[in-house]
């Protein structure tokens, strides 16, 4: 069979180079539209928002920059300070409790309990609900005239009081309760995945050396879970900053303005109070807050990769 020599080879070669080119370019081609989309609709609009914050825009955008006036007005609003304080309280408690509770649940479920396959989705399920549903359900549950307090009073414990939802000073903690209820199961799932990745040999070795269970977790397992802690922190931190629907459904920002958060502040100033510039300024401050958390994390991650 020496008849076919040059001609048949030439064609596959050309086709081969075209296929190779296509193979190399395909990911880029497929990614290009979404890349362009993100460039415009995320980063473009961040810039647009920043520009708006420099204008005197009120009801509709005005395109004449006049400087940082809106930021001055923003920080002169008592509401904004309430929002920032609330974010501090809500954010720190939400993140801490979610991580602590998530880790605890994960460790307990990891003890080879029976029915793990049923327990896991039960804890994870709240995450499937939207914040609006969570907020509304907890609003009914915590309302003193409707839910928990009324039920327990009806059962006979008449002096029982739980009026946090309608209390100026405590209302922000009801937002923490509802938020933690929703997200701690998700954090549990993250930790559980991390725990399953821990090498059993190390644990066995530690046990042979006579380490107690507590010590094994404290000295070995939890340090190994460090990346999971970081991911959980990042996920929870941005959820805390952007949580809007939860507050709206649960307390509507009240009583008074006791549960105002930067996100609710941003929406109301931009869209209902016709102070678009101040709203944009608050959005930029929120973005900077998130960046202050995310950028050091990304930096440390990238540095580790390159090492």
């Amino acid at each position: 069979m020496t008849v076919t020599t040059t001609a048949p080879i030439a064609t596959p070669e050309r086709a081969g180079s075209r296929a190779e080119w296509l193979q190399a370019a395909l990911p880029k081609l497929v990614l290009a539209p979404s890349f362009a989309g993100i460039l415009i609709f995320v980063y473009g609009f961040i810039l647009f928002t920043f520009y708006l914050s420099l204008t005197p825009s009120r009801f509709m955008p005005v395109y004449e920059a006049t400087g940082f006036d809106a930021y001055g007005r923003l920080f002169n609003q008592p509401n904004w300070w309430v929002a920032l304080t609330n974010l501090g309280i809500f954010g720190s408690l939400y993140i801490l409790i979610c991580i602590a509770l998530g880790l605890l649940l994960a460790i307990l479920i990891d003890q080879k309990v029976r029915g793990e396959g049923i327990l896991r989705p039960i804890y994870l399920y709240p995450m499937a609900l939207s914040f609006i549903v969570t907020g509304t359900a907890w609003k009914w549950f915590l309302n003193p005239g409707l839910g928990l307090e009324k039920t327990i009073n009806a059962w006979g414990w008449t002096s029982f009081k739980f009026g946090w939802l309608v209390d100026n000073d405590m209302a922000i903690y009801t937002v923490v309760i509802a938020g933690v209820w929703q997200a701690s199961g998700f954090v549990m799932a993250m930790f559980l995945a991390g725990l399953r990745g821990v090498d059993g040999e190390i644990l066995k070795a530690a046990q042979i050396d006579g380490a107690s269970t507590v010590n094994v977790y404290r000295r070995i397992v939890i340090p190994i879970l460090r990346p999971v802690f970081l991911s959980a922190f990042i996920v929870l931190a941005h959820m805390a900053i952007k949580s809007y629907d939860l507050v709206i459904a649960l307390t509507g920002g009240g009583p008074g303005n006791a549960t105002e958060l930067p996100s609710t502040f941003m929406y109301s100033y931009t869209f209902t109070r016709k102070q678009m510039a101040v709203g944009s300024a608050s959005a930029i401050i929120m973005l900077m807050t998130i960046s202050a958390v995310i950028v050091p994390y990304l930096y440390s991650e990238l540095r580790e990769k390159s090492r």
Partner: protein
Amino acid sequence: MTIRTKLLAGVMIAAGAAWLAPTAAVAQSKEVEVVHWWTSGGEAAGLSVLRKAVEAKGITWKDAPISGGGGAQAMTVLQARLAAKNPPTATQGLGFDIQDFAAEGVLANLNGVADKEGWDKVIPAALQRFSKYKGQWVAAPVNVHSTNWVWANKAVLEKAGVTAMPANFDEFVAALDKVKAAGLIPLAHGGQPWQDATIFDSILLSVGNDFYKKSMIDLDPAALGSADMKTAFERMAKLRTYVDANFPGREWNLASAMVIKGDAAFQIMGDWAKGEFLAAGKVPGKDFVCFRFPGTQGTVTFNADQFAMFKVGADKQEAQAVLASSILDPAFQSAFNVKKGSVPARTDVSDKDFDDCGKKGMKDLAEASAKGTLFGSMAHGHASPAAVKNAIYDVVTRHFNGQLDTAKAVAELPKAVAAAK
């Protein structure tokens, strides 16, 4: 000249003709698109009267309902549609929102219809302040709500021994005390900023008409921080003691339900509350009574629903004019407002179809309009622009919820208003 070039010229002429054809005769689009947030029972029933009236004139009604009381969500949608240069024919609008739209230059000129039908003569001047922009009609008012009403359950008052309706603030306090002593909730209230502000409106009026005008409409810093303002906040604090502990976040209609069911005696709320009483099968004068907030007799604070008309293409203007004219039709004004609980925006409509509270409302409105005591409601965006209104809300609601004491509230109000101006 080859056949080819001849052919080409022919094609070009044909294409040109096809291009020109639609502009030669403007096809009239018989459709109106109306953005509104009247989605609940009485409101939707009232709106369907307008819809039928417009459809009877051969125009298609394209409904664009956006739920969410007060129209905050609708405003967001409208902002986006205006930015995209795709405005609807008309939108439900309130007070200063209409003026804001007009200032953007997006509203139509309705002077043609208005002059032909004599709107200037039949619509109160206080209302025209919002329907007109720089002397040009831009919106068609549908109704007038007045906000300084008190609604009371007659059976509860009898049980508590309240026989006469209170005529001033002190008598009101005495009546509230009697109800409290009888072991019932004296004042049904929903704890949302706008509801706190609705009470505040009435209280300011009870302190004085001039004071209301100076502080809320003229936004005079001296009046905002005056001794009269201190009196007003003291009265707010006093009323706060008659509200049940569970009020924060409650919707206004749930507060009305408390009065309807006999759990509470009074509710201070605009006349839309009447719809709730009627829907529950209660009869005005027999089961419940309506009276002006004690000390504000003869004065009316109002908010008015209007349909602001957007600038639309020449093809849609005819349908828009029909819509505008239908809104101001006396028959529609009567039919709609009987259902909605408010009173007609024109003062020449017969009151024969209205109940006792409605008749009283129409009489009060005509009187107040004639006497010059018809004021826009601060709580409902008819006294000051949205930014200022919300700044006042903030102070009032924080005071009512105990986050500010009276002295601090009086000190903070002028500052908050100045910062929002």
